[in-house]
């Protein structure tokens, strides 16, 4: 089976191995927002892991020829190797609770036979408002409007 858009075979394999090994992670940031319909652009897919020290993660990455690179002098923590370039690691989400609490606010996006956990648009907006960096300020109004539109669509489809 060909890899579904927008992932390459190796990127898809990386996600699938993480899911198969039951690593607790979720997609966050603008890539998560765009998966839910927000008209924003992004260059990468941010992944928030509950515990980066977990052995399950290193084993999963090894299985696909990738590795976790801990933060260095000028580098943030990152994934390297096959299929890892698209993904960025997030270690802190401004304005949000603990991972265990926020995972309850996820929506699930089908990825082949598995499901990818994606932080809800509402919580992404909350994190952008809290972070309030210049680049966040540009996206806040768009996310707010997208949330209004998606909530209206959801309410309508529930009524039907």
């Amino acid at each position, binding site marked *: 089976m060909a890899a*579904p*858009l*927008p*992932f390459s075979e190796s990127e898809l394999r990386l996600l699938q191995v993480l899911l198969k090994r039951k690593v607790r992670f979720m997609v966050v940031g*603008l*890539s998560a927002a*765009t*998966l*839910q*319909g*927000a*008209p*924003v*652009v*992004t*260059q*990468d*897919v941010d992944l928030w892991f509950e515990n980066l020290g977990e052995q399950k993660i290193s084993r999963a990455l090894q299985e696909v020829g990738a590795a976790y690179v801990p933060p260095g002098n000028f580098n943030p923590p990152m994934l390297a190797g096959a299929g890892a370039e*698209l993904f960025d690691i997030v270690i802190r989400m401004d304005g949000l609770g603990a991972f265990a609490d926020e995972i309850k606010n996820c929506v699930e*996006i*089908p*990825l082949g036979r598995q499901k990818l956990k994606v932080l809800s648009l509402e919580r992404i907006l909350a994190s952008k408002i809290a972070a309030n960096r210049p680049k966040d300020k540009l996206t806040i*109004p*768009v996310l*707010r*409007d*997208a949330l*209004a*539109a*998606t909530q*209206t*669509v959801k309410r309508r489809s529930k009524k039907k």
Partner: protein
Amino acid sequence: MKRRVQPIDAAKASRWAQRLSTRVGKILAAHPDADRDNVRHTLILLEQPPLERLQRSLIRGRATAIFRK
């Protein structure tokens, strides 16, 4: 070159645009501060599968980064 427009497709497209416009209007009535374009683009994206939305976003995001260089 003149584009050939299929009458059936044009009528269908026109009905879709009308429906979209109505839906945008209803959302703006409930959220008067919302930007019309943001709402319209969101509704259009909601018609696409999630992974396709991400694909579009990544293509545009990377193109923007290339132009900035």
